[in-house]
């Protein structure tokens, strides 16, 4: 017997289908949106409520070795925020880096039904898949870190672009990734091999490889384009957090040469000013470029005041923060593939740079001309917890609230921004774009982020409230794959989401090139490296669109 559900008379926000607050019914059968359902379908009366597709986090850090190290690192944070079990859900701990179960449930309680883990060294992908299997409710996928990969660098150095493309596809397939991730390209070799040095310029030569970060980035964008990955390279630029890094960021976007590229947590890369001096806002220049270039998508990586955790494959960045804060610090080098740094952090209103970053994020949102391409994120937990999203939505939707908030922050920093002059208020439709329809489009998820026939029945229903933070903090219903997971604000059942991954086509001969490299420089056997599909459990292959 098919399971059927009708959501009746809700005010629907479905920007992908040009539905902007129209009162209409939604019909669901077997986890998908359909035209109509039988009269015996169960029914939710959504009269007076706001109905949106389930939200999608395009960039967060929720599973895998670095996340787990951060969990282990902060018992003091977990104990302040316990997550008790219920009759239908598992227990856990919260705080800035929640346990897996708490992560899935908490995303769901904010109306999120999909979340993408943004940085996974391939050798640890098995771990990520195990954790994602224990992350309930949401659908999830991950981006595989290839931007500092020693073997791929070797191919680029040898000028073998074709093999480079094949090897990327081999890696994405072998670990079941969604797309490729580049982080501070070129820095790993300097960090590990030149006594903790860092890349400072996208055009400098990377030690031992005679190639530049700019060339690496360009090559990845080109290869991903040809492979037709559903989401383009997800790029964390060089020089994160350094004054004047806008020039690096602009250079990186230019390296795309009109091809699709996604710029991660763009706020962290929008610093004006001069090196080694206090930063100023460079948001205007960055957003101008993005507004004018339709090939670019970005998530903002908004900073929210309060607790955060720097958790990044950008090891030199974490080291820089460590030397500011001298708190406990984690560094974790992954052979041939990645670096990693973790440091507990908090953003404070009184501190110049922290306020500047908070304001810069808001500037980027408020000066964006295309909500489809400038998407909501806090780079959880780097800019703050994903639990801050409702508050961030309120900051965007309510200019009076924003003006009030401006009173309590560092005024010197505010003076370096145009934030006080920005009166724009996001509409519900625009919120639905930056949290649902936009991420789905950027990710190439055709069945998500909208409520048209054939879409996944991932739906959130909110009681409309003037206080948007309160509203987005507690949806009345959350429906995942047609199942009412949250009913009247309470969990009605547990639910396992699925893994989203892509399988770009490639010539399998490339494996014979990669294998000898493994024997020499890896510590695991090549034959034990690729991950069996058993680890995917329930999963969905998102189609590629190769250009040949």
């Amino acid at each position, binding site marked *: 017997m098919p399971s059927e559900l009708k959501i009746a008379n809700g005010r629907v926000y479905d920007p992908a289908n040009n539905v902007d607050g129209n009162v209409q019914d939604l019909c669901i059968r077997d986890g998908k949106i359909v035209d109509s359902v039988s009269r015996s379908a169960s029914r939710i009366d959504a009269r007076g409520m706001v109905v949106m597709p389930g939200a999608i986090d395009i960039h967060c850090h929720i599973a895998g070795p670095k996340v787990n190290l951060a969990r282990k690192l902060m018992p003091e944070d977990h*104990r302040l925020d316990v997550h*008790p*079990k219920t009759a239908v859900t598992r227990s856990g701990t919260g705080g800035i880096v*929640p346990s897996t179960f708490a992560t899935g449930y908490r995303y769901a309680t904010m109306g999120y039904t999909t979340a993408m883990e943004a940085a996974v060294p391939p*050798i640890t992908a098995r771990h990520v898949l*195990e954790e994602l299997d224990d992350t309930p409710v949401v659908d999830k996928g991950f981006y595989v870190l290839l931007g500092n990969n020693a073997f791929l660098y070797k191919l680029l150095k040898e000028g073998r672009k074709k093999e480079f493309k094949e090897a990327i596809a081999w890696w994405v397939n072998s670990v079941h990734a969604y797309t490729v991730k580049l982080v501070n390209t070129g820095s790993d070799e300097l960090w590990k091999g030149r006594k903790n040095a860092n890349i400072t310029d996208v055009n400098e030569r990377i030690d031992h490889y005679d190639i530049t970060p700019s060339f690496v980035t360009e090559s990845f964008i080109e290869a991903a384009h040809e492979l037709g990955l559903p989401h383009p390279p997800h790029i964390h630029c060089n020089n994160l957090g350094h004054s004047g890094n806008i020039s690096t960021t602009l250079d990186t976007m230019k390296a795309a040469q009109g091809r699709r590229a996604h710029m991660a947590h763009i706020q962290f890369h929008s610093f004006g000013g001069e090196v080694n001096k206090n930063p100023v806002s460079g948001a205007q220049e960055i957003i101008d470029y993005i507004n004018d270039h339709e090939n670019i998508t970005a998530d903002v990586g908004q900073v929210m005041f309060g607790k955060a955790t720097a958790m990044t494959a950008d090891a030199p960045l974490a080291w820089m923060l460590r030397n500011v804060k001298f708190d406990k610090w984690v*560094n974790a080098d992954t052979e041939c593939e990645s670096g990693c740094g973790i440091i507990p952090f908090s953003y404070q209103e009184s501190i110049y740079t922290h306020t500047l970053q908070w304001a810069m994020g808001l500037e980027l949102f408020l000066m964006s001309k295309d909500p489809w391409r400038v998407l909501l994120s806090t780079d959880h937990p780097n800019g703050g917890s994903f639990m801050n999203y409702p508050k961030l939505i309120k900051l965007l939707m309510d200019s009076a609230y924003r003006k009030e908030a401006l009173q309590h922050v560092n005024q010197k920093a505010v003076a370096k921004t145009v934030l006080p002059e920005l009166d724009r208020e996001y509409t519900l439709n625009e919120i639905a774009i930056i949290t649902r329809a936009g991420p789905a489009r950027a990710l190439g998820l055709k069945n998500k982020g909208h409520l048209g026939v054939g879409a996944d029945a991932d739906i959130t229903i909110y009681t409309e409230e003037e206080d948007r933070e309160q509203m987005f903090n507690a949806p009345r219903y959350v429906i995942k794959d047609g199942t009412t997971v949250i009913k009247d604000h309470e969990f009605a059942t547990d639910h396992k989401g699925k893994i989203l991954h892509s399988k770009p086509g490639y010539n399998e001969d490339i494996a014979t090139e990669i294998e000898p490299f493994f024997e020499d420089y890896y510590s695991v*056997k090549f034959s034990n490296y690729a991950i069996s599909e058993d680890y995917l459990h329930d999963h969905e292959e998102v189609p590629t669109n190769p250009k040949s």
Partner: protein
Amino acid sequence: MPEAAKSKPKESKNIRIVKDATCTFCGCVCDDMELTVDLDAHRITKAKKACVLGRAWFYEHTLEDRPVVLIDGKEATLDEGLDEAARILVDAKFPITYGLSDCPCEAQRVAVDIMDTINGNIDTTTSVCHGPSGMAFQGVGESTATLGEIKNRADLVIYWGGNPAESHPRHFTRYAVTPKGMFIPNGKKDRTVVLVDVRKTPSTPVADIFIQVKPGKDFELLWALRALVKGKKISEDIEEQTGVSREVLDDLVERMKNCQFGVLFMGMGLTMTRGRHFNSGAIYSLASDLNEFTHFVAKPVRGHGNVTGADNVVSWQTGYPFGVNFNRGYPRFNPGEFTTSDVLARGEADAAMIVASDPASNFSKKAIEHLEKIPVISMDVKETHTTRLSRVRFAVATYGINTGGTVYRMDDVPISLRPAFDSPFPTDQEVLEGICQRVKKMLSGSKARVAA
């Protein structure tokens, strides 16, 4: 290639070769074994590349003639065993689970589920292994690396309080001392190896420099090194305190500051002795400090095949690595309060489920005495002191030999196992899932244990 690798058939007819199998005996988790399996005799007859410990592991795990389930010493069916185990756990007020470091993550995940369901206490052998290092990590963090990076780059390798030659024989040859790496073209010739211990061991000959520290004085020695690295004064009588001269310390400090990529490996000689987590914290801090001069990492040399997996699983499910209590309906962590050695020695636990470990042999006298008084459920591949005193004992298949699954190497690298031959015994995971289902069924409805 596989054709050539097939060894010439001996007398036995039914031979299988398993290439790139993984040895789970110790935390090295070497995944390059080539096993020759006699499928008729149900045993591994050859384990190419295995060390002496690995060979013993592979050769000695055969199919023993044991009942799958014993309840009070009497043979029973698997269902009876699972029913009785579930009943014991549900009836208990302070049920505990302990062990878990010699089974795959898939089984560990179910064990945490059971304890979450019955508001029990979960702890792993980490608490009596590198638990103190886990606590130190919470305090100061860690600069670390996967073993391949050490193979590729480390030109200064320091072992402190460990004897890998006897406990992790291939640590030297596969990962950290002799192998050639990307920037270590000549292997051992390109590295300086230092060993710090209270006594000479079979590991000592590997070292270029051997430093003998007085027992229980590791912390003092480490703290002096930290001070010297930072250019601070240390006490004049350092040699009298620690047994190590100022000259030796100065030399070591220069080597550490000037190497290209240094690593400090720590053994249980630090965690099990005076100072415990302070010793581990001193190692971590020393390595972190050295990053102001060069690239430096530290790493505990973990013991059991999947103890690192246990840390990871318990951490991702609860937020804490070991010593976790669910009594209030959510995880709480407190070493000393919820660690097994303590809950047994204080006589608090009133039922215990022991998976793949032998506390009845390794724990303190007081803890063992209490274990003898309470109902114990055990899962093990061999008879042990613990299985002997158990009310319900399950004989299970050996992970990595009879079962697949995931294990984590000491550097958190996850590896999938390739089983060599089938076993009639159930896996840990199957037994735990059976118990889990029954426990959930028994507690469903009015008896559900929700948050207090």
